[in-house]
């Protein structure tokens, strides 16, 4: 119970401090926020000073920083994230659709990674020390050093320009998702394979597997009934950590493949100085990240009681 409380306090604390930092962004960027908000609402490039002053009062920008922060949080909690400075549309809509795109891309990429990593990692564990193990381990470890902005163009060169079987960019359907998801999957694939291998090695050496074999179960039966459950637990944890990490969107991949996700939205917003979009985007990403990691920790504590005791995993 104390464990749970502690996690929730940390969660709320993180959210509060992040949102305050994000709230301060307009004060760190050049330009008068009142003028920018009014321009976004009216679309007028030239505003007279009295209108700007009126807007300052209307949007509460003349109040103290703490009051402004409180108003901002309340609006955000009601789904009102303001208007984008550049596109002059509701920020909540922009962020929502971008998040949907990024989520589908991230989930696809992670499933590709799992589909490759589980067999590869298990094979490496079973054939430990043999040539196939060394080959799998070396190649997947090398994936970590691959820059995405290099993999993506090379894949485009081969599959789009040379063979012409996949689109080089855009977001039109499942087919257009193949190359970005493949690029995105390489790095998690590397980690998934290493963790699968390590935990399968533990499982293969565990006494209860030997016991199951000695009761006459075949290797496959023993693995299915007794091995996989323990062996896959670390992989599941890693999966959710990666899911949290990828929801921020990969800026590079989304820019290269013209995917209308979070990464590209925020990249555009940062280049254009579109403060409301930056604020909303960062708060959304951070909230999701913290929520998923906390849920993972709780889930893990539920399954594995030793975590719960005194030492909170950091």
């Amino acid at each position, binding site marked *: 119970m104390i464990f749970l409380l502690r996690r929730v306090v940390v969660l709320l604390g993180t959210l509060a401090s992040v949102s305050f930092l994000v709230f301060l962004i307009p004060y760190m960027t050049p330009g008068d926020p009142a003028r920018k908000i009014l321009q976004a609402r009216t679309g007028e490039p030239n505003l007279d000073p009295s209108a700007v002053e009126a807007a300052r009062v209307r949007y509460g920008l003349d109040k103290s920083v703490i009051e402004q922060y409180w108003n901002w949080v309340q609006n955000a909690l009601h789904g009102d994230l303001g208007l984008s400075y550049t596109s002059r549309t509701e920020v909540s809509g922009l962020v929502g659709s971008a998040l949907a795109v990024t989520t589908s891309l991230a989930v696809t990429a992670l499933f590709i990674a799992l589909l490759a990593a589980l067999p590869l990692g298990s094979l490496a564990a079973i054939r430990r*020390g043999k040539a196939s*193990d060394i080959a799998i381990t070396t190649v997947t470890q090398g994936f970590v050093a691959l820059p995405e*902005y*290099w*993999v993506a163009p*090379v894949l485009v060169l081969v599959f789009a320009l040379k063979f012409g079987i996949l689109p080089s960019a855009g977001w039109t359907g499942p087919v257009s998702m193949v190359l970005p998801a493949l690029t995105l999957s390489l790095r998690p694939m590397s980690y998934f394979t290493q963790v699968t291998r390590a935990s399968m090695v533990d499982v293969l050496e565990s006494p209860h597997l030997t016991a199951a074999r000695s009761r006459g179960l075949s290797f496959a039966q023993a693995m299915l009934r007794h091995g996989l459950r323990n062996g896959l637990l670390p992989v599941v944890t890693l999966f959710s950590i990666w899911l949290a990490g990828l929801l921020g969107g990969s800026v590079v991949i989304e820019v290269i493949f013209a995917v209308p996700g979070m990464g590209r939205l*925020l990249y555009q917003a940062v280049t254009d100085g579109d403060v409301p979009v930056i604020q909303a985007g960062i708060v959304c990403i951070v909230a999701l990240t913290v929520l998923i990691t906390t849920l993972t920790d709780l889930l893990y504590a539920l399954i594995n009681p030793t975590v719960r005791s005194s030492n909170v995993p950091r």
Partner: protein
Amino acid sequence: MSRVENPAVDNPAVDNRASGALDGTVGAVPSPGASRIRGLRRLRAWPWSLRLGLFGVLAVVLVLLATPWSAPFDPALQDLSNRLAPPGVVHWLGTDQLGRDVLSRLMWGGRFSVTIAAITLTISAVFGTLLGIVCARTKGALDEFVMRVSDVLLAFPEMIVAMFLVSILGAGYGTLILALAVAGWTPFARLARALALEIDSRDFIEAAGSLGFPRTFIILRHLLPNAFSPLLAHASVRFGHTLITVGALSFLGLGVAPPDSDWGSMLADGLPYMSRAAGLVIYPGLAIFLTALAVTLAGRGINVRPRRQGRS
């Protein structure tokens, strides 16, 4: 206390071979002047990943250091009559869209990429390690505060924060390094803290404390040497990551800007000409990949390497 890593975890074949060779060395009869040979034997006992990685790192560093004298052409020299030339005798890796020599540009560009990544990493590692050790030894309020700050920093998406800082502070090398170091210290602080807590619980630290040695001395003489190897291994893995991130920012036009160019910006410049001259995209990416791979390999090797006994 022997700190040999469980060989099964990392790479069994490598480790068995390595420790076998080491046993051979230990078994050899020590004779006067044998220390040098033993040093060499010990080198041969290193895992192949460490040797290969170090060799790669050394090669990259030497090439980049020698660039001002060894680069075949001026990287900015344009030859518009000879654009997008394929690799040949004069231009080993061909020329780019302005007729500039790709090999020379790669060599000069690497100096930017690698230097920026190295400076960023050094700042992050030194600051993070010191902070982590101080946290572990003082515990209490400071420790709690630093760990919560790192929680917050880790929750931010790294690329977005870097992009944001570059956009408000203006592009430049100082900003680039600052933007990456802002959150870059957190993994080092956490690792150093965990290591320090673990080492602190060992007997020799308590012994040193009860002998009346000052805290700073204990940290410098006993704590840091024991934490050094895992920290170095972590730093090398982070280096690959940093190098790739620096390249990504340059690729997006937020890092190294004209007239300078690094591997990331070269790759971005080459994209429009990819179908005619694929090398413009392939070579800079390959350079980043191989450099990151070499450093990462060396780091993995450090983890696998059978360690000497903890200094105490």
